[in-house]
Protein backbone atom coordinates (compact mmCIF):
# COMPACT_ATOMS: atom_id res chain seq x y z
CA UNK A 1 0.00 0.00 0.00
CA UNK A 2 1.37 3.38 -0.97
CA UNK A 3 0.41 6.30 1.23
CA UNK A 4 2.93 9.00 0.62
CA UNK A 5 2.20 11.25 3.61
CA UNK A 6 2.74 10.28 7.15
CA UNK A 7 -0.74 9.82 8.57
CA UNK A 8 -1.57 10.08 12.25
CA UNK A 9 -4.66 8.06 12.97
CA UNK A 10 -7.00 7.92 15.94
CA UNK A 11 -9.28 4.90 16.20
CA UNK A 12 -12.58 5.30 18.01
CA UNK A 13 -14.18 2.07 19.08
CA UNK A 14 -12.24 -1.05 19.97
CA UNK A 15 -14.87 -3.65 19.19
CA UNK A 16 -14.65 -6.03 16.25
CA UNK A 17 -14.27 -3.29 13.60
CA UNK A 18 -11.87 -1.17 15.64
CA UNK A 19 -9.73 -4.20 16.40
CA UNK A 20 -9.59 -5.14 12.70
CA UNK A 21 -8.55 -1.60 11.74
CA UNK A 22 -5.89 -1.60 14.42
CA UNK A 23 -4.48 -4.94 13.28
CA UNK A 24 -4.35 -3.91 9.65
CA UNK A 25 -3.19 -0.32 10.01
CA UNK A 26 -0.37 -0.87 12.46
CA UNK A 27 1.48 -2.88 9.77
CA UNK A 28 1.58 0.09 7.42
CA UNK A 29 4.80 2.02 7.95
CA UNK A 30 3.47 5.43 6.86
CA UNK A 31 0.61 5.24 9.33
CA UNK A 32 1.05 6.05 12.97
CA UNK A 33 -1.77 5.06 15.27
CA UNK A 34 -1.66 7.70 17.98
CA UNK A 35 -4.28 6.02 20.11
CA UNK A 36 -7.46 4.05 20.42
CA UNK A 37 -10.43 4.53 22.68
CA UNK A 38 -13.61 2.73 23.75
CA UNK A 39 -16.24 3.24 26.43
CA UNK A 40 -16.01 -0.42 27.32
CA UNK A 41 -12.70 -1.05 29.15
CA UNK A 42 -12.95 -4.76 28.24
CA UNK A 43 -13.19 -4.10 24.47
CA UNK A 44 -10.88 -6.55 22.63
CA UNK A 45 -9.15 -3.78 20.65
CA UNK A 46 -7.89 -2.14 23.84
CA UNK A 47 -6.17 -5.31 24.96
CA UNK A 48 -4.59 -5.68 21.52
CA UNK A 49 -3.47 -2.02 21.58
CA UNK A 50 -1.65 -2.61 24.86
CA UNK A 51 0.13 -5.60 23.33
CA UNK A 52 1.19 -3.46 20.38
CA UNK A 53 2.22 -0.64 22.73
CA UNK A 54 -0.30 1.72 21.18
CA UNK A 55 -1.72 4.26 23.65
CA UNK A 56 -5.19 3.54 25.04
CA UNK A 57 -6.88 6.85 25.75
CA UNK A 58 -10.04 7.01 27.84
CA UNK A 59 -11.41 10.32 26.75
CA UNK A 60 -12.44 10.96 23.10
CA UNK A 61 -11.66 14.72 23.01
CA UNK A 62 -8.22 14.00 24.54
CA UNK A 63 -7.46 11.58 21.73
CA UNK A 64 -8.70 13.52 18.72
CA UNK A 65 -7.84 17.02 19.90
CA UNK A 66 -4.17 16.32 20.48
CA UNK A 67 -1.20 14.47 19.10
CA UNK A 68 -1.54 16.07 15.62
CA UNK A 69 -4.20 13.55 14.58
CA UNK A 70 -5.09 14.04 10.92
CA UNK A 71 -7.38 11.06 10.36
CA UNK A 72 -10.12 9.96 12.71
CA UNK A 73 -11.57 6.51 12.11
CA UNK A 74 -14.90 6.12 13.83
CA UNK A 75 -15.67 2.46 14.28
CA UNK A 76 -18.12 2.93 17.15
CA UNK A 77 -21.24 2.57 15.01
CA UNK A 78 -22.80 5.22 17.29
CA UNK A 79 -24.76 7.96 15.40
CA UNK A 80 -24.27 10.39 18.29
CA UNK A 81 -20.50 10.11 17.93
CA UNK A 82 -20.40 11.85 14.58
CA UNK A 83 -21.86 15.10 15.88
CA UNK A 84 -19.57 15.11 18.89
CA UNK A 85 -16.54 14.49 16.66
CA UNK A 86 -17.13 17.61 14.62
CA UNK A 87 -17.12 19.77 17.73
CA UNK A 88 -13.88 18.35 19.15
CA UNK A 89 -11.71 17.59 16.17
CA UNK A 90 -8.76 19.71 15.17
CA UNK A 91 -9.14 21.73 11.99
CA UNK A 92 -7.65 19.79 9.11
CA UNK A 93 -8.36 16.34 10.53
CA UNK A 94 -10.50 14.09 8.36
CA UNK A 95 -13.20 11.83 9.72
CA UNK A 96 -14.20 8.48 8.35
CA UNK A 97 -17.16 6.92 10.03
CA UNK A 98 -19.81 4.27 9.56
CA UNK A 99 -19.75 2.58 6.18
CA UNK A 100 -16.76 4.62 4.94
CA UNK A 101 -14.67 3.33 7.79
CA UNK A 102 -15.79 -0.25 7.09
CA UNK A 103 -15.00 0.18 3.40
CA UNK A 104 -11.47 1.27 4.27
CA UNK A 105 -11.08 -1.78 6.46
CA UNK A 106 -12.28 -4.03 3.63
CA UNK A 107 -9.85 -2.48 1.16
CA UNK A 108 -6.89 -2.88 3.45
CA UNK A 109 -7.87 -6.43 4.25
CA UNK A 110 -8.13 -7.19 0.54
CA UNK A 111 -4.70 -5.71 -0.08
CA UNK A 112 -3.09 -7.66 2.73
CA UNK A 113 -4.67 -10.86 1.38
CA UNK A 114 -3.16 -10.16 -2.04
CA UNK A 115 0.19 -9.52 -0.43
CA UNK A 116 -0.01 -12.84 1.40
CA UNK A 117 -0.91 -14.62 -1.86
CA UNK A 118 2.06 -13.06 -3.62
CA UNK A 119 4.39 -14.08 -0.85
CA UNK A 120 3.09 -17.63 -0.81
CA UNK A 121 3.31 -18.07 -4.58
CA UNK A 122 6.87 -16.76 -4.65
CA UNK A 123 7.81 -19.11 -1.81
CA UNK A 124 6.30 -22.12 -3.56
CA UNK A 125 7.95 -21.19 -6.87
CA UNK A 126 11.27 -21.05 -5.02
CA UNK A 127 10.83 -24.51 -3.53
CA UNK A 128 11.17 -25.96 -7.06
CA UNK A 129 14.84 -25.02 -6.93
CA UNK A 130 15.22 -27.06 -3.72
CA UNK A 131 14.74 -30.37 -5.58
CA UNK A 132 18.44 -31.16 -6.03
CA UNK A 133 19.25 -30.31 -2.43
CA UNK A 134 16.34 -32.29 -1.06
CA UNK A 135 17.13 -35.31 -3.23
CA UNK A 136 20.74 -35.21 -2.01
CA UNK A 137 19.74 -34.95 1.64
CA UNK A 138 17.14 -37.71 1.46
CA UNK A 139 18.90 -40.17 -0.82
CA UNK A 140 22.19 -40.11 1.08
CA UNK A 141 20.65 -41.33 4.36
CA UNK A 142 18.56 -43.80 2.34
CA UNK A 143 21.77 -45.22 0.86
CA UNK A 144 23.14 -45.65 4.36
CA UNK A 145 19.92 -47.28 5.57
CA UNK A 146 19.77 -49.67 2.60
CA UNK A 147 23.43 -50.62 2.84
CA UNK A 148 23.24 -51.26 6.57
CA UNK A 149 19.98 -53.19 6.31
CA UNK A 150 21.46 -55.44 3.61
CA UNK A 151 24.44 -56.03 5.84
CA UNK A 152 22.29 -56.70 8.91
CA UNK A 153 20.55 -59.54 7.08
CA UNK A 154 23.85 -61.45 7.22
CA UNK A 155 25.64 -59.90 10.18
CA UNK A 156 26.55 -62.41 12.89
CA UNK A 157 28.33 -60.07 15.29
CA UNK A 158 25.73 -58.84 17.77
CA UNK A 159 27.70 -55.69 18.70
CA UNK A 160 27.86 -54.72 15.05
CA UNK A 161 24.13 -55.40 14.71
CA UNK A 162 23.37 -53.02 17.58
CA UNK A 163 25.65 -50.31 16.24
CA UNK A 164 24.23 -50.48 12.76
CA UNK A 165 20.65 -50.48 14.01
CA UNK A 166 21.49 -47.25 15.88
CA UNK A 167 22.98 -45.78 12.68
CA UNK A 168 19.76 -46.59 10.84
CA UNK A 169 17.65 -44.90 13.51
CA UNK A 170 19.82 -41.77 13.32
CA UNK A 171 19.60 -41.72 9.52
CA UNK A 172 15.80 -41.98 9.64
CA UNK A 173 15.67 -39.09 12.12
CA UNK A 174 17.85 -36.92 9.88
CA UNK A 175 15.62 -37.65 6.92
CA UNK A 176 12.43 -36.79 8.76
CA UNK A 177 13.98 -33.51 9.95
CA UNK A 178 14.27 -32.45 6.29
CA UNK A 179 10.53 -32.83 5.78
CA UNK A 180 9.80 -31.04 9.04
CA UNK A 181 11.99 -28.03 8.13
CA UNK A 182 10.53 -27.77 4.68
CA UNK A 183 6.88 -28.08 5.64
CA UNK A 184 7.42 -25.43 8.30
CA UNK A 185 8.95 -23.18 5.68
CA UNK A 186 6.39 -23.78 2.95
CA UNK A 187 3.28 -23.30 5.06
CA UNK A 188 1.30 -20.11 4.64
CA UNK A 189 2.36 -17.48 7.14
CA UNK A 190 -0.48 -17.04 9.58
CA UNK A 191 -1.72 -13.45 9.58
CA UNK A 192 -1.45 -11.04 12.50
CA UNK A 193 0.77 -13.24 14.58
CA UNK A 194 3.33 -10.78 15.75
CA UNK A 195 5.49 -12.28 18.42
CA UNK A 196 8.98 -11.77 19.75
CA UNK A 197 11.38 -13.49 17.40
CA UNK A 198 14.99 -14.24 18.37
CA UNK A 199 16.83 -13.26 15.18
CA UNK A 200 19.92 -15.39 15.74
CA UNK A 201 17.84 -18.57 15.90
CA UNK A 202 15.95 -17.55 12.79
CA UNK A 203 19.22 -16.98 10.92
CA UNK A 204 20.32 -20.51 11.77
CA UNK A 205 16.97 -21.90 10.71
CA UNK A 206 17.15 -19.95 7.43
CA UNK A 207 20.62 -21.33 6.78
CA UNK A 208 19.25 -24.88 7.04
CA UNK A 209 16.58 -24.09 4.43
CA UNK A 210 18.95 -22.17 2.14
CA UNK A 211 21.15 -25.27 1.92
CA UNK A 212 18.50 -26.91 -0.23
CA UNK A 213 18.37 -24.04 -2.69
CA UNK A 214 22.08 -23.89 -3.27
CA UNK A 215 25.15 -25.80 -2.28
CA UNK A 216 27.04 -24.20 0.60
CA UNK A 217 30.00 -26.52 0.06
CA UNK A 218 32.52 -24.01 -1.18
CA UNK A 219 31.31 -21.19 1.03
CA UNK A 220 33.11 -20.14 4.18
CA UNK A 221 30.69 -19.27 6.95
CA UNK A 222 31.19 -16.49 9.40
CA UNK A 223 28.58 -15.98 12.12
CA UNK A 224 28.83 -12.99 14.39
CA UNK A 225 25.74 -13.00 16.55
CA UNK A 226 25.14 -10.61 19.38
CA UNK A 227 22.98 -12.33 22.00
CA UNK A 228 19.63 -10.71 22.72
CA UNK A 229 18.75 -9.67 19.17
CA UNK A 230 14.97 -9.90 19.32
CA UNK A 231 12.51 -8.32 16.91
CA UNK A 232 8.75 -8.23 16.76
CA UNK A 233 7.00 -9.71 13.77
CA UNK A 234 5.67 -12.79 12.10
CA UNK A 235 8.31 -15.55 12.52
CA UNK A 236 7.35 -17.31 9.28
CA UNK A 237 7.68 -14.11 7.31
CA UNK A 238 11.00 -13.18 8.87
CA UNK A 239 12.28 -16.67 8.07
CA UNK A 240 11.27 -16.11 4.46
CA UNK A 241 13.17 -12.80 4.37
CA UNK A 242 16.34 -14.40 5.72
CA UNK A 243 16.16 -17.47 3.45
CA UNK A 244 15.76 -15.15 0.49
CA UNK A 245 18.74 -12.96 1.37
CA UNK A 246 21.00 -15.91 2.25
CA UNK A 247 20.08 -17.73 -0.96
CA UNK A 248 20.84 -14.63 -3.02
CA UNK A 249 24.18 -14.23 -1.24
CA UNK A 250 25.14 -17.85 -1.94
CA UNK A 251 24.07 -17.59 -5.59
CA UNK A 252 26.27 -14.50 -5.95
CA UNK A 253 29.28 -16.65 -4.95
CA UNK A 254 28.27 -19.71 -6.97
CA UNK A 255 31.17 -19.63 -9.40
CA UNK A 256 33.86 -18.10 -7.24
CA UNK A 257 33.21 -19.41 -3.74
CA UNK A 258 33.66 -16.91 -0.95
CA UNK A 259 32.53 -15.97 2.52
CA UNK A 260 28.97 -15.66 3.77
CA UNK A 261 28.79 -13.45 6.83
CA UNK A 262 25.74 -13.40 9.08
CA UNK A 263 25.91 -10.72 11.69
CA UNK A 264 23.57 -9.28 14.30
CA UNK A 265 24.30 -6.22 16.40
CA UNK A 266 22.31 -4.21 18.92
CA UNK A 267 22.72 -0.50 18.85
CA UNK A 268 20.64 2.39 20.20
CA UNK A 269 17.52 0.29 20.66
CA UNK A 270 17.82 -1.18 17.20
CA UNK A 271 18.67 -4.61 15.90
CA UNK A 272 20.87 -4.69 12.81
CA UNK A 273 21.02 -7.87 10.77
CA UNK A 274 23.72 -8.03 8.12
CA UNK A 275 23.94 -10.64 5.40
CA UNK A 276 27.11 -10.23 3.35
CA UNK A 277 28.70 -12.12 0.52
CA UNK A 278 32.01 -11.72 -1.30
CA UNK A 279 30.45 -12.57 -4.65
CA UNK A 280 29.80 -10.93 -7.99
CA UNK A 281 28.09 -7.78 -6.67
CA UNK A 282 25.23 -5.76 -8.16
CA UNK A 283 25.86 -3.07 -10.79
CA UNK A 284 25.29 0.45 -9.51
CA UNK A 285 22.59 1.20 -12.07
CA UNK A 286 20.67 -1.92 -10.99
CA UNK A 287 20.74 -1.15 -7.27
CA UNK A 288 17.65 1.05 -7.48
CA UNK A 289 15.65 -1.60 -9.28
CA UNK A 290 16.32 -4.67 -7.18
CA UNK A 291 13.35 -4.09 -4.86
CA UNK A 292 10.97 -3.53 -7.77
CA UNK A 293 8.52 -6.35 -8.51
CA UNK A 294 9.52 -8.63 -11.39
CA UNK A 295 13.12 -7.43 -11.39
CA UNK A 296 15.41 -10.41 -11.85
CA UNK A 297 18.88 -11.12 -13.18
CA UNK A 298 18.21 -14.83 -13.29
CA UNK A 299 17.45 -16.83 -16.42
CA UNK A 300 13.77 -17.17 -17.39
CA UNK A 301 12.09 -19.77 -15.19
CA UNK A 302 14.76 -19.50 -12.50
CA UNK A 303 13.55 -16.58 -10.45
CA UNK A 304 10.16 -14.99 -9.94
CA UNK A 305 11.52 -11.47 -9.59
CA UNK A 306 9.41 -11.14 -6.47
CA UNK A 307 12.06 -12.13 -3.94
CA UNK A 308 13.41 -8.77 -2.86
CA UNK A 309 10.08 -7.06 -3.41
CA UNK A 310 8.51 -9.39 -0.86
CA UNK A 311 11.53 -9.00 1.42
CA UNK A 312 11.06 -5.25 1.47
CA UNK A 313 7.31 -5.52 2.00
CA UNK A 314 7.79 -7.77 5.02
CA UNK A 315 10.59 -5.69 6.50
CA UNK A 316 8.50 -2.52 6.21
CA UNK A 317 5.57 -4.30 7.81
CA UNK A 318 7.83 -5.07 10.75
CA UNK A 319 8.62 -1.35 11.01
CA UNK A 320 12.10 -2.10 9.80
CA UNK A 321 14.29 -0.82 7.00
CA UNK A 322 16.48 -2.52 4.42
CA UNK A 323 19.64 -1.10 2.91
CA UNK A 324 22.04 -2.52 0.37
CA UNK A 325 25.68 -1.85 -0.32
CA UNK A 326 27.34 -3.56 -3.25
CA UNK A 327 30.55 -3.49 -5.28
CA UNK A 328 31.10 -5.41 -8.50
CA UNK A 329 33.29 -8.49 -7.92
CA UNK A 330 33.70 -7.62 -4.24
CA UNK A 331 30.33 -8.50 -2.85
CA UNK A 332 27.05 -7.29 -1.44
CA UNK A 333 25.78 -6.50 2.04
CA UNK A 334 22.12 -6.28 2.94
CA UNK A 335 21.43 -4.59 6.25
CA UNK A 336 18.08 -4.96 7.97
CA UNK A 337 17.29 -2.60 10.82
CA UNK A 338 14.44 -3.29 13.23
CA UNK A 339 13.37 -1.80 16.52
CA UNK A 340 14.79 -4.00 19.28
CA UNK A 341 11.81 -5.76 20.78
CA UNK A 342 13.66 -7.18 23.75
CA UNK A 343 11.54 -6.35 26.79
CA UNK A 344 13.38 -3.85 28.97
CA UNK A 345 15.20 -5.29 31.91
CA UNK A 346 14.69 -8.87 30.83
CA UNK A 347 17.52 -11.15 29.95
CA UNK A 348 17.14 -13.23 26.85
CA UNK A 349 18.52 -16.73 26.65
CA UNK A 350 19.67 -17.55 23.16
Amino acid at each position, binding site marked *: MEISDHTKVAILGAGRDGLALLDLLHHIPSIEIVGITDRNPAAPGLQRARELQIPVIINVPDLIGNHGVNLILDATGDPAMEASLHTHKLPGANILSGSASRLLWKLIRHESKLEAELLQSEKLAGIGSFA*AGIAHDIN*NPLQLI*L*GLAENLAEERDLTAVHEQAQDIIQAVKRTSAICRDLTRYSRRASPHQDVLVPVNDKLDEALKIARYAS*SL*HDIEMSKQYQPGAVVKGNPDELLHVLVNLITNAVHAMERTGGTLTLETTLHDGQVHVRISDTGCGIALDKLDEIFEPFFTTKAPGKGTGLGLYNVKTIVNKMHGAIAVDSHIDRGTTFTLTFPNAKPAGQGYLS
Partner: protein
Amino acid sequence: MDEFKSGFFIGGEACEGRVLVVDDEPDIRKVVKMTLQKAGYEVLEAENGEKAIEVINSGENRLLLDVVICDIRMPKINGAEAVAYFRSNYPRVPLIVLTGFPDTDMATSFLRQGVVDYLVKPVEGEKLRSAVARALEQRELAKL
Protein backbone atom coordinates in the same frame (compact mmCIF):
# COMPACT_ATOMS: atom_id res chain seq x y z
CA MET B 1 44.01 -68.93 -10.23
CA ASP B 2 43.11 -65.51 -8.97
CA GLU B 3 46.35 -63.73 -9.73
CA PHE B 4 46.00 -64.55 -13.39
CA LYS B 5 42.65 -62.79 -13.61
CA SER B 6 42.50 -59.11 -12.66
CA GLY B 7 43.35 -59.80 -9.07
CA PHE B 8 46.47 -59.29 -7.05
CA PHE B 9 47.35 -60.19 -3.49
CA ILE B 10 47.06 -57.95 -0.47
CA GLY B 11 48.02 -59.35 2.92
CA GLY B 12 47.67 -62.85 1.59
CA GLU B 13 44.04 -62.42 0.49
CA ALA B 14 42.90 -62.43 -3.08
CA CYS B 15 41.76 -59.00 -4.22
CA GLU B 16 39.22 -58.54 -6.96
CA GLY B 17 40.35 -55.02 -7.68
CA ARG B 18 41.04 -51.63 -6.22
CA VAL B 19 38.11 -49.22 -6.09
CA LEU B 20 38.18 -45.54 -5.15
CA VAL B 21 34.97 -44.18 -3.60
CA VAL B 22 34.61 -40.40 -3.84
CA ASP B 23 31.83 -38.94 -1.69
CA ASP B 24 31.68 -36.10 0.80
CA GLU B 25 29.47 -38.11 3.17
CA PRO B 26 31.49 -40.45 5.40
CA ASP B 27 28.34 -42.58 5.84
CA ILE B 28 28.14 -43.23 2.12
CA ARG B 29 31.82 -44.12 1.90
CA LYS B 30 31.31 -46.45 4.86
CA VAL B 31 28.43 -48.45 3.36
CA VAL B 32 29.86 -48.55 -0.15
CA LYS B 33 33.12 -49.82 1.31
CA MET B 34 31.26 -52.40 3.38
CA THR B 35 29.32 -53.58 0.34
CA LEU B 36 32.35 -53.88 -1.93
CA GLN B 37 34.73 -55.37 0.62
CA LYS B 38 32.34 -58.28 1.00
CA ALA B 39 32.84 -59.01 -2.67
CA GLY B 40 36.60 -58.96 -2.21
CA TYR B 41 37.44 -55.47 -3.43
CA GLU B 42 40.00 -53.23 -1.85
CA VAL B 43 38.34 -49.85 -1.26
CA LEU B 44 40.06 -46.46 -1.04
CA GLU B 45 38.20 -43.32 -0.01
CA ALA B 46 38.27 -39.64 -0.95
CA GLU B 47 35.99 -36.92 0.42
CA ASN B 48 35.98 -34.69 -2.63
CA GLY B 49 37.27 -34.35 -6.18
CA GLU B 50 40.50 -32.71 -5.07
CA LYS B 51 41.33 -35.59 -2.70
CA ALA B 52 40.34 -38.10 -5.39
CA ILE B 53 42.86 -36.58 -7.80
CA GLU B 54 45.49 -36.71 -5.05
CA VAL B 55 44.72 -40.39 -4.43
CA ILE B 56 44.93 -41.44 -8.05
CA ASN B 57 48.18 -39.54 -8.51
CA SER B 58 49.87 -41.12 -5.51
CA GLY B 59 52.26 -44.05 -5.87
CA GLU B 60 51.00 -47.28 -7.29
CA ASN B 61 47.39 -46.05 -7.60
CA ARG B 62 48.35 -44.50 -10.89
CA LEU B 63 48.66 -48.04 -12.22
CA LEU B 64 46.62 -50.17 -9.90
CA LEU B 65 43.37 -48.26 -9.47
CA ASP B 66 40.67 -50.24 -11.27
CA VAL B 67 37.42 -48.33 -10.80
CA VAL B 68 36.32 -44.94 -9.49
CA ILE B 69 32.85 -44.46 -7.98
CA CYS B 70 32.11 -40.76 -7.83
CA ASP B 71 29.40 -38.58 -6.26
CA ILE B 72 28.50 -35.31 -8.01
CA ARG B 73 27.45 -32.74 -5.41
CA MET B 74 30.66 -32.26 -3.42
CA PRO B 75 32.84 -29.43 -2.09
CA LYS B 76 36.15 -28.30 -3.57
CA ILE B 77 36.39 -30.00 -6.94
CA ASN B 78 32.90 -31.37 -7.54
CA GLY B 79 31.99 -34.64 -9.20
CA ALA B 80 31.52 -33.23 -12.69
CA GLU B 81 34.96 -31.61 -12.60
CA ALA B 82 36.53 -34.75 -11.16
CA VAL B 83 34.94 -36.89 -13.88
CA ALA B 84 36.34 -34.56 -16.56
CA TYR B 85 39.80 -34.78 -14.97
CA PHE B 86 39.73 -38.58 -14.74
CA ARG B 87 38.49 -38.95 -18.31
CA SER B 88 41.26 -36.83 -19.75
CA ASN B 89 44.13 -37.98 -17.52
CA TYR B 90 43.19 -41.59 -16.80
CA PRO B 91 40.94 -42.60 -19.70
CA ARG B 92 41.51 -46.29 -18.95
CA VAL B 93 40.06 -46.13 -15.45
CA PRO B 94 36.31 -46.76 -15.68
CA LEU B 95 34.09 -44.32 -13.83
CA ILE B 96 30.75 -44.94 -12.13
CA VAL B 97 28.67 -41.97 -11.04
CA LEU B 98 26.71 -42.54 -7.81
CA THR B 99 24.49 -39.56 -7.12
CA GLY B 100 21.59 -38.59 -4.91
CA PHE B 101 19.94 -36.54 -7.62
CA PRO B 102 18.45 -38.32 -10.62
CA ASP B 103 18.83 -36.02 -13.61
CA THR B 104 18.40 -37.43 -17.11
CA ASP B 105 20.30 -34.62 -18.85
CA MET B 106 23.20 -35.00 -16.48
CA ALA B 107 23.19 -38.78 -16.87
CA THR B 108 23.26 -38.49 -20.67
CA SER B 109 26.08 -35.99 -20.56
CA PHE B 110 28.16 -38.22 -18.25
CA LEU B 111 27.56 -41.32 -20.37
CA ARG B 112 28.67 -39.35 -23.43
CA GLN B 113 31.86 -38.45 -21.61
CA GLY B 114 32.52 -42.16 -21.22
CA VAL B 115 31.21 -42.80 -17.71
CA VAL B 116 30.29 -46.49 -17.65
CA ASP B 117 27.35 -46.28 -15.26
CA TYR B 118 25.10 -43.68 -13.68
CA LEU B 119 23.59 -44.98 -10.45
CA VAL B 120 21.09 -43.15 -8.28
CA LYS B 121 21.18 -43.53 -4.50
CA PRO B 122 19.90 -45.56 -2.81
CA VAL B 123 21.35 -48.43 -4.81
CA GLU B 124 21.21 -52.07 -3.72
CA GLY B 125 24.49 -53.79 -2.91
CA GLU B 126 23.98 -56.34 -5.66
CA LYS B 127 23.45 -53.68 -8.29
CA LEU B 128 26.52 -51.77 -7.13
CA ARG B 129 28.69 -54.89 -7.17
CA SER B 130 27.57 -55.86 -10.65
CA ALA B 131 28.21 -52.32 -11.89
CA VAL B 132 31.75 -52.54 -10.52
CA ALA B 133 32.21 -55.99 -12.08
CA ARG B 134 31.05 -54.66 -15.46
CA ALA B 135 33.39 -51.69 -15.15
CA LEU B 136 36.28 -54.06 -14.43
CA GLU B 137 35.47 -56.08 -17.55
CA GLN B 138 35.69 -52.87 -19.54
CA ARG B 139 39.06 -52.12 -18.00
CA GLU B 140 40.29 -55.57 -18.95
CA LEU B 141 39.05 -55.06 -22.48
CA ALA B 142 40.77 -51.68 -22.67
CA LYS B 143 44.06 -53.31 -21.65
CA LEU B 144 43.97 -55.66 -24.62
